[in-house]
């Protein structure tokens, strides 16, 4: 498993069934039905977080909080090393006769550096893992999936009952159904 999640890439997919929704409640129902029917969903794309969708799809907990901890620990260590080198080893200053080693004046610097590295690290790795970073071309199934439409994508293959998938999608409020072959979508 690389840092960049290749499972999210759509480039090498053979054939996919794509359903478009405009109502999030119906989208959640459709997702739930598909999961119950044993269909493996490639992904659901929504312009904003839809509560409960993660549980229905069985998405596992993200590693982002572990990454955040590691970034924080890195920031703490870097700041510690920086202060120690500058203030203790290289150029100790007598400021009001305060101790140079491990004094309370270190705390704000350590705190700020920890928070800074945590925040930037989390943001960076989040976008990296989700392929939203320079150099990776965005792959949208529908131009409006970042605005007001929601998309469910199912990859076809052996053991996938296409008729059933399309029927479930149609029954649960899909406003449009498409098939996608080699990156080209046609309405069914």
């Amino acid at each position, binding site marked *: 498993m690389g840092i960049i999640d290749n499972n999210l890439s759509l480039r090498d997919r053979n054939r996919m069934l794509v359903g478009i929704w405009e109502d*999030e*409640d119906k989208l*959640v*129902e459709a997702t*739930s039905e598909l999961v119950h029917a044993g269909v493996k969903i490639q992904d659901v794309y929504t312009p904003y*977080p*839809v*509560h*409960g*969708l*993660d*549980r229905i799809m069985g*998405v*596992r*907990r*993200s590693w982002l*909080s572990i990454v955040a*901890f590691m970034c924080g620990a890195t920031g703490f260590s870097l700041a510690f090393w920086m202060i120690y080198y500058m203030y203790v080893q290289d150029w100790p200053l007598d400021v*009001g*006769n*305060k*101790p140079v080693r491990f004094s*309370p*004046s270190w*705390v*704000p610097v350590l705190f700020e550096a920890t928070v800074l590295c945590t925040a930037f690290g989390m943001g960076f790795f989040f976008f990296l893992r989700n392929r939203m970073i320079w150099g990776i071309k965005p792959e949208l199934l529908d131009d409006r999936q970042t605005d007001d439409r929601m998309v469910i994508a199912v990859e076809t293959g052996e053991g996938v009952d296409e008729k059933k998938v399309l029927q479930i999608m149609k029954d649960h409020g899909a406003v449009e159904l498409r098939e996608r072959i080699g990156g080209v979508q046609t309405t069914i």
Partner: protein
Amino acid sequence: MGHGHHKIEIKQEQFAVPAKAKRFAIGLTIIGLILAGIGIATMDKGGSHGHGHETAATKHEHAATAAAGGEIAVNEHAADAHANATEHHGNVENENFGPRAEFHKQNKPWTTRIWSNILIVGYLLFMVSLAALFFVAVQYIANAGWSAAIKRVPEAISTFFPVGFALAFIAILVAKSDLYHWVHYEHQHLTKGQPGFDAILDGKSWFLNSKMFLIFPVVLVVIWWMLGRKLRSLSVAEDAAQPGDVSFFKKSIRYSAGFAVIYGFTIAVVAWLWMMSIDAHWFSTIFGVYNFATSWVTALTIICLFVLYLRSQGYLKIVSDEHIHDLGKFMFAFSIFWTYIWLSQYLLIWYAHIPEEMSYYQIRYEDYKFNFLLNIVLNFLCPFLILMMRNAKRNPVVLTIVGCILIFGHFHDVWLMVVPGVFGPGQQIGLLEIGTLLTFGGIFIYWVMIALTKRGLIAVNHPYIEESAHHDVGV
């Protein structure tokens, strides 16, 4: 929204205090009384303070010689001034530490320690209950949906604040000239030029005087109590209203905003008058925020513990692990907030190294070093390290353990605000302190449980109750 395919039924629940819980609360009080009784019986009741001061004085003189060490020690000049002041009353500058040292030296009745404990516990419970009311107000102002399901718990806790206030007030009425050295000084009616005249206390006396000290907090409590009662009555009237009637909700927002503004400005005044004035020569501009942080994190902890208890008894059916997770996050986050404020106060004083500001930390760092450091361990390191993981914040056992640590930790924090300033060096938390905490803790638990039975446990017509029932923080 997310669980749109299944509906959660929202039903009213009526809490009845289980016999076991009653026994627990009464048992805590009885054990507390026994411990306090043993504490009092074994206490040294004869003029120990004169002796205590001698060690204090020698310690401070010793500190003066060791000051060059660069640790948190008294500035040499100030220490000399202090040493001089105990012997003869010189110029105004030398008076900085003089009266307080005299105050420690004087023989106080042995009951002072009991009253100081009632002040500590009363003040803590008062601040915590009032912070619970602030919690209710904040939820309204922020238009928060998640907390609608648990809002009867902070409402019930908030009914206790007049009791906590009364406890602290009684302790102050009875023992104020032994607890507060400026009251002792005020009674001497000294004028400029007389020996023992204290320019600093004299300058503060327009604000820091017995009338202000007693009347102003009472006025504030009446205002808070009226606003709190209004908020609670709106909340209970909403239960009987037509579903979909948001007029109570809108009114509550207005009263909450009014309460929050008044509370925000006035809670600091009580902290100045009752806590900061124990070290009357000393002042800290962040002290009100610091006291608020202490009471706020403790209030969140107590709300969390009550919600956990009610759930374990099968109540609060619409409250899920998601709500518990959020309460756990609050305990975690505001422990860090407390540390931030605590350090902000300490760091500036440590850096500036000005004698008149350091007097507060000097005695706490030199003579109460164990407690000073224990404060950080209990109130920062424990919650920070234990509650960092997501699973810990969703685990009732872990939350209960950390909650108990936090409650004791913040009791200990208030203890450290009071005791060194009243008694000087050489005190420690003993059976009397633990006993007082348990006694009034038991009464507090009993009171809140009775308050919970007074109305339905669920705010069934709250506009956000549906949203709260479906609260979800994600995988």
